[in-house]
């Protein structure tokens, strides 16, 4: 990695990163590429997030879905851990709570494959610094 020497370089790294995701989407499946994030803070992992992360990663591949599965820190919904955020192409991200093995399967089969709305969606309950 070349060292960042200026604000311009920072912008470049940011752009390259965004482009790499876009490229991933374009090359794989422009209409169906899915982004899955699993909250993996200590407490999420204690609630079972690691198993859910492994399971979703495995099944996404097995079932031939074009997606990236990535981990994040705390999504802040302690009452509903483990939590999983799914972004379908062209849609707003949706967070599912209390995800166990069955729920994970349902998310893949029903929401990711067919866009079918499931129970257990956590409504977005905050504004970001950018929006105010």
């Amino acid at each position: 990695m070349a060292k960042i020497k200026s604000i311009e370089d920072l912008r470049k790294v940011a752009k390259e990163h965004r482009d790499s995701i876009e490229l991933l989407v374009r090359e794989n499946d422009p209409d169906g590429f899915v982004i899955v994030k699993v909250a993996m803070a200590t407490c999420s992992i204690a609630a079972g997030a690691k198993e859910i992360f492994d399971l979703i990663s495995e099944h996404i591949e097995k079932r031939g879905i074009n997606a990236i599965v990535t981990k994040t820190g705390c999504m802040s919904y302690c009452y509903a851990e483990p939590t999983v955020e799914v972004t379908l192409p062209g849609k707003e991200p949706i967070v599912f709570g209390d995800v166990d093995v069955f729920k994970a399967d349902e998310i893949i089969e029903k929401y990711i494959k067919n866009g079918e709305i499931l129970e257990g969606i956590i409504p977005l309950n905050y504004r970001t610094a950018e929006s105010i």
Partner: protein
Amino acid sequence: MVNKTQIRIALRNCGLINPERIEEYISEKGYMALGKVLTEMSQEEAVNIIIDSGLRGRGGAGFPTGIKWDYARKSVSDQKYVVCNADEGDPGAFMDRSILEGDPHSVLEAMAICGYCIGADKGLVYIRAEYPLAIERLNIAITQAREFGLLGDDIMGSGFSFDIEIRYGAGAFVCGEETALIHSMEGERGEPSLKPPFPAESGYLGKPTNVNNVETLANIPVIYLKGADWFSGIGTEKSKGTKVFALAGKVNNVGLIEVPMGTTLREVIYEIGGGIREGKKFKAVQTGGPSGGCLTEKHLDTPIDYDNLIANGSMMGSGGMIVMDEDNCMVSIAKFYLDFTVEESCGKCAPCRIGNKRLNELLGRICEGKGTEADLDRLRNLGEVIKDTSLCGLGQSSPNPVLSTLDNFYDEYISHVRDKKCPSGVCKDLMEYFIIEENCVGCTACARACPVGAITGERKEPHLINPEICIMCGACMEKCKFDAVILK
């Protein structure tokens, strides 16, 4: 309706980016603030922005961050240090861990900015060893930042060099106090020392040191990106920005929340927290952990900020917020926190070491039904003496849970000492097992289960428990199939 009371500043990237990839942080304008400060601002200008923003320390005491930086900047020395206080120790508080696990680069970036502002080239993160995942992610973040040239020599060609190391704490509560923290980092016992000298003059290894809490630091980059005015436009007159709380206890939606200063407890508990569990009645909310106090129904509409909480006998603390319902006994709650303080007192000064121990014993006696009304006066007097005479913040605030429950729930204390009753049914020693006549069918199961023969009664007739003999083991209640045995 979607509630949008919350505003995410410190938690802006938490749960959204992969904390183990620096590119994701950079994509969210990460390290832009550092770039801006290094290329466009003098040290003084950069410090003034933080002063103007009105940001105050999020670790507990609420000291203005910019002023702290300015003291350290003005100290003359060949070597200065920036320390991140990640020794989060309040029971029930986890916001610092969440930030470090979810967005470690925001803290590293802020430390580098602080380094530039005060003229330090070395940063240290003091973190408890019991946060292994936070440590792992911090290490990954530090390595990546070095690879990208965002830590190390001559950052962005500015001539400014800064690097960060991690120091591990053993998880002592008192080491969150900045002088104790510094002693611990030096390899000394984790005991506080008298201020002055303040760390800004003489801190780590006797050099000027600026200590800031994790959440405080996480706010810094955004202030440079959005401006001091933007930041000071959020919050109340004397408390700017937002505060992260670990909302726990008897609310439906326990979680990590970030609200603008000045949000009311009612909004937090009922709108964000979704109200009290099982439709029970709200009783109190404990803020500030072992240093804080309990607020009640009458405080529900008080805007939460540093000064209002102190005026009402509690404090911001690091941001633990534990909600209690009618089933919580306030005397037991006070005792819970005192147990913690007694355990965590470093023992250096007598008021804290001995005073808290005596305070805890008094509470123990009250919970056992051996307290008197004179004990309540003793509690208050002793509590006030400990507050006034302790060496550091731990002792100066440790009686708060006792004093605030005395203020707000005096009736409950009176029930314990005068009537020898615990209205919430928590203090075991103040309760008796009792058989409800109507429910008892006289099956004799309880009498046979009782190991001390405290239960008498004829077959098919209601039984009776003799409280003089009863040892409160609960065997009768377990055996009864007719819900006839109750505890009251």
